[in-house]
């Protein structure tokens, strides 16, 4: 088992570049101790026969037991099935809405994909509205499709939103850090003042606090969290909390 993981081990936590190769020398000796193992390649790694190629530059990360991926910073979103994103409705044509999610193609959202929507009872969606929805089809060969209901037919938090509040864009790395369960950044922010937040995996974040000033403060703080270590962030938040009280 270590044969596979050992060639990853020395590079774990280090910067890897596209073109780096991890090859596993599969020994021809039949050994009962050697079992077939699975290695799951996450984003940034691709399989090429017996080798694993790195195709993005970043840090190699590992999650037990056998998941490896490349942690990289990126601004552009590529649709992935099952991810929830914030989209902006750009057109209403016939039975579908065209939604901009920041990727290379606009996604389509059927008007029946809302909770309680029927042919007679159309949802109230205007051009320019924000929708929080999930990808049901997202691969490189087809046009991405979104839905605002889950498999049981319930909205589950999805749909049109955001009458007040501010939408802004951050990098994909920051979004992933915000969506981690028990995220430190969110916890630190909550201590300053209460606010509502919707995070889309496409790098778009919507926040709303009691006043316009507070909303702007939250938005600017999130923007600046991009490149700050935990220490710097906590110092900054503390200063803001004292300033606003």
């Amino acid at each position, binding site marked *: 088992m270590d044969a596979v993981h050992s060639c990853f081990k020395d590079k774990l936590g280090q910067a890897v570049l596209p073109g780096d190769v991890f090859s596993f020398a599969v020994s021809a000796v039949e050994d009962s101790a050697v079992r077939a193992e699975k290695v799951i390649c996450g984003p940034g790694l691709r399989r090429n026969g017996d080798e694993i190629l790195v195709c993005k530059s970043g840090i190699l990360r590992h999650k037990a037991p056998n998941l490896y991926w490349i942690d990289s910073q990126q601004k552009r979103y590529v649709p992935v099935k099952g991810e929830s994103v914030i989209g902006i409705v750009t057109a209403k044509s016939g039975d579908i809405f065209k939604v*901009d999610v920041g990727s290379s193609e606009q996604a389509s959202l059927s008007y029946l994909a809302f909770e309680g929507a029927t042919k007679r009872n159309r949802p109230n969606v205007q051009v320019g509205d924000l929708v929080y929805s999930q990808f049901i089809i997202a691969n490189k060969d087809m046009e991405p499709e979104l839905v605002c209901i889950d498999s049981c037919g319930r909205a589950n938090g999805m749909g049109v939103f955001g009458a*007040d509040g501010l939408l802004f864009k951050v990098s994909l790395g920051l979004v992933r850090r915000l969506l981690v369960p028990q995220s430190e950044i969110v916890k630190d922010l909550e201590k300053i003042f209460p606010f509502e937040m919707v995070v889309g995996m496409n790098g778009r974040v919507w926040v709303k606090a009691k006043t316009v000033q507070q909303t*702007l403060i939250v*938005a600017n703080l999130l923007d600046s969290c991009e490149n700050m270590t935990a220490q710097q962030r906590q110092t900054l938040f503390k200063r803001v909390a004292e300033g606003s009280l």
Partner: protein
Amino acid sequence: MRETPLSNCERLFLLKAIEEKKRLDGRQAYDYRNIKITFGTDYGCCTVCLGKTRVLAQVSCELVPPKDSRPTEGIMFFNLELSSMASPGFQPSRKQSSELLVTLNRQLERCLRNSKCIDTESLCVVSGEKVWQIRVDVHVLNHDGNLMDAASIAAISALCHFRRPDVAIQGRDITVFSPEERDPVPLSIYHMPICVSFAFFQQGTYLLVDPCEKEELVMDGLLVIAMNKHREICSVQSSGGIMLLKDQVIRCSKIASVKVSEITELINKALENDRQVRKEGGKFGFAESIPKERITALKREQAPVEMKDIEETADEIVREAEAPSEAVHSPVIVATGTGQVGEGLQNTWGLEEEDAEEEFQGGMDGKEKKKGTVCVCVCVCVGCAGFTHETIVQLV
């Protein structure tokens, strides 16, 4: 490529925030973003960063004959380009952004040319024959709002920084000295006009200076005032079709004069710093302006390249390489006037035209028939009429 559309929620929030006198980045209504001016290695090259908006300007000169209507004046030429990297909406074909491009170019010309800030008479070398043409190229590298102000600051800083070659005139002879022979001469600049942009919201009720990109998308109208530090207005332009009251315009011009003097101060300081560094012989140019403390930047010193084994490696490669395939067969002459190089279908062109050629034989005797010319490019005209055939025969 398409720009991200502006959602209704963003628009409403921005307008609400402006009503409460709050801006997205925490500025006051009359504040400018941070301006950073850096100069390059050669004279006349300047980069301006206005917040995140980045603009590059370069001034160059050339000796040309003057315009007929003004034989004793030099020529100024301005060109502003919206680089495709500045925004996803700026395509290389320039169709979509053409309105913005024309507006910016026109405003830059009015600000700098019509205000007569450069002494064009001093650019004359020989009256009526040779004058200097000063060309200013401005490239917009990143669009985060207020391109006009950034472009005007970059253009005037580059013009102040520029040095043209020195000339000596003896009668009709003009000698242009290279920078090594004689120090280049700065341009003669009377004053420094700078554009200040004001964005209006809610039918002119609210006013913001130096709008960022999101604010530009929700504004109703734009007022651009070009002014110099002596409080002289060089040009005023209002777009968007909003109605402005007289005292609004006067208030704007007062704000503009304050801003312009601050910005002129900044430009002069940057020019002075650059002059100082050049005099002391220190390193200057964009290479020095790479921030060393950022984790996104890295520099390396000069490094020698190993050359030890290259002779042996090269020899080995040459030895082991296959010999090149046999030299090209000499051209096969099919008929007088046509040849064929390489292997392909049998060329029957010369054979077909043999009868037609006899008429032209007389004219051809005196000329040397060039053999061996590849006639591939000429094949296209095989079906042409007689007179064109003669031309083809001459070529071949």
